């Protein structure tokens, strides 16, 4: 086989400029595949981080009665004794923190203006560490104490009632037992939330104040667990319920991914774009290479006739041209891999700032991830593409009539 590989390599060098141009398309294609994969990976990573921060953690612990229910359906199902549960969770070495979340809704009023809100009762210090909210303060200061009558509002909500940091507003809600309660609270901060629908409705209140407002002290809709390592999410989602059940605290769990519809949609969209781009790239490479190979067959018609005349099998002629295609794919991919790594190093060192990914508040410094799989896929895809491109010219060459080929001018 090696002698035919050598012959194929020399045939590629026969028209150096043409091979260089065709090979350049392969190189560019390979770089495009690997760089896009690296960039998309980094975007997914940033998006994942933003999604986890929007929840405040990786895993939500719920009352077992909430299992299989949507968040709306489970809104009235409360966990008892969340501090006890948080205490058990804090013994897990993979857990950074566990914070309660109370969900409620109602009207926020300032003077004669009111607007509906979606409220979250949380522990300010823990929320600040784990959540997106801390990055979104546009005026005022983040909630400071757990029992103070303070709130934070989304910009849209604050605008709707004409409130600003330092103003006094009234927060009204319905308690789980059906009564109506209200509290006067100071607007500690206004948040610029990245999702407009949330920005128009969101309200944060310290857990202590929210629990008093709802008359549910010691209870929570969920306890959100922040892990040290994202990769432990699935493991913890499996192990925590078992461990807590042994402690006499049966629970249901949901991972951040279980409810991350937006993340999944964005990922699907990116994957579709990536696939379409790859398809276009493959077509371009196939057309360019098939053209080169066809020209090569045409120019070498007499030579092919000679090879057939001296007894070379038609299948061997076909293999020779296919080898040329695969070789071009492999060499182009090899050069592409080296250039891709160099370009990645340059871009990663450039410090270019990118705008925030969808749903995030902070932009990131451009970083193209190194995805070994994309390099493997690049090699396989380019070789396969070149094989497809070489197939028809190779077939044409192998089906030449030796007498006609020898007489070709």
């Amino acid at each position: 086989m090696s002698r035919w590989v050598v012959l194929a390599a020399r045939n590629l060098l026969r028209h150096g400029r043409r091979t260089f141009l065709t090979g350049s398309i392969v190189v560019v294609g390979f770089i495009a595949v690997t760089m896009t994969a690296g960039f998309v990976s980094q975007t997914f990573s940033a998006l994942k981080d933003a999604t986890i921060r929007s929840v405040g953690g990786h895993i939500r612990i719920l009352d077992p009665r909430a299992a299989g229910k949507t968040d709306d359906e489970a809104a009235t199902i409360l966990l008892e004794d969340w501090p006890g549960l948080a205490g058990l969770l804090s013994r897990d070495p993979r857990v950074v923190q566990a914070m309660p979340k109370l969900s409620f809704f109602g009207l926020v009023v300032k003077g004669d203006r009111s607007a509906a809100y979606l409220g979250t009762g949380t522990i300010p210090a823990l929320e600040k560490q784990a959540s997106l909210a801390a990055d979104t303060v546009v005026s005022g200061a983040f909630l400071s104490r757990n029992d103070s009558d303070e709130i934070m509002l989304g910009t849209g909500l604050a605008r709707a009632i004409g409130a600003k940091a330092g103003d006094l507003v009234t927060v009204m809600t319905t308690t789980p037992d059906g009564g109506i309660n209200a509290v006067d609270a100071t607007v500690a901060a206004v948040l610029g939330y990245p999702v407009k629908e949330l920005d128009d409705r969101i309200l944060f209140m310290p857990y202590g104040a929210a629990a008093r407002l709802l008359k549910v002290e010691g209870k929570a809709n969920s306890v959100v667990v922040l892990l040290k390592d994202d990769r432990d999410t699935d493991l913890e989602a499996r192990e925590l319920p078992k461990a807590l059940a042994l402690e006499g605290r049966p629970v249901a769990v949901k991972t951040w991914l279980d409810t991350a519809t937006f993340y999944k949609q964005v990922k699907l969209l990116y994957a579709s774009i990536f696939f379409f781009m790859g398809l276009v790239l493959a077509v371009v490479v196939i057309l360019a290479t098939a053209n080169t190979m066809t020209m090569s067959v045409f120019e070498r018609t007499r030579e092919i006739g000679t090879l057939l005349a001296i007894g070379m099998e038609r299948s061997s002629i076909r293999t020779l041209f296919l080898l040329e295609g695969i070789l071009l794919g492999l060499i182009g991919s090899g050069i592409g891999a080296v250039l891709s790594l160099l370009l990645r190093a340059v871009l990663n060192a450039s410090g270019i700032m990118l705008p925030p990914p969808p749903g995030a508040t902070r932009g990131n410094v451009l970083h193209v991830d190194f995805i070994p799989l994309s390099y493997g896929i690049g090699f396989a895809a380019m070789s396969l593409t070149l094989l497809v491109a070489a197939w028809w010219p190779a077939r044409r060459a192998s089906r030449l009539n030796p007498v006609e080929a020898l007489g070709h001018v």
Partner: protein
Amino acid sequence: MPILETRGLTKTYRLGEERVVGVVDASLTLAQEAFAVLAGPSGSGKTTLLNLLGLLDTPDSGSLIFEGTDVSTLDERGRARLRRERLGFVFQAHQLVPVLSAEENVALALWIRKLPEETCRTRARAALAAVGLGGLEARRPDALSGGQRQRVAVARAIVGEPALVLADEPTASLDSETAGRLIDLFARIHAERGVAFLFSSHDPRIVQRADRRIRLLDGRITADEHVAAGACA
């Protein structure tokens, strides 16, 4: 046993709406020690008959017996195997592969027989030495003269130790002196190795040197002369 025997070999071609006669009812027998030439003017059917005898083309009718076996009904692979193992070809232009060295071009005829690399190399070098090109093994065709290239082609034709070498106008693209030396080479190989040669040529020197002259006109064999080697036509 004759090396080759044909009966009523006929080949016509379609040229647009017209059918053009290539060879009509060609019957001949070629002995194992033949040094024969198909002679005739351009368009007389020399190359067509040579292609049929070399299993490069298939006849419309008639039979072709090669070394006692009817090969006229062989399939594509069978014909390729026979060409590979029992026949050698020399063309008007050298038809060497430009990206291969002289040695590799000769070895090519053995590569396609899937022989070990060392065997291919040794035999290719020996064949090149036999045609007087020892020392030029590494040169590529573009670094050789026209005569040297044609000698490489001869080496390629004989390296597989064929029973018959078919040479189509082998001297047509050579100057007189080079052509003369090439004809001498053919005669020497024929004498030393006992390989049968069948030329298609209107070069009078080849016709003169051949011991058998099969003359064609309009696709028909018009004369078949057995002469003493070197006799004048």
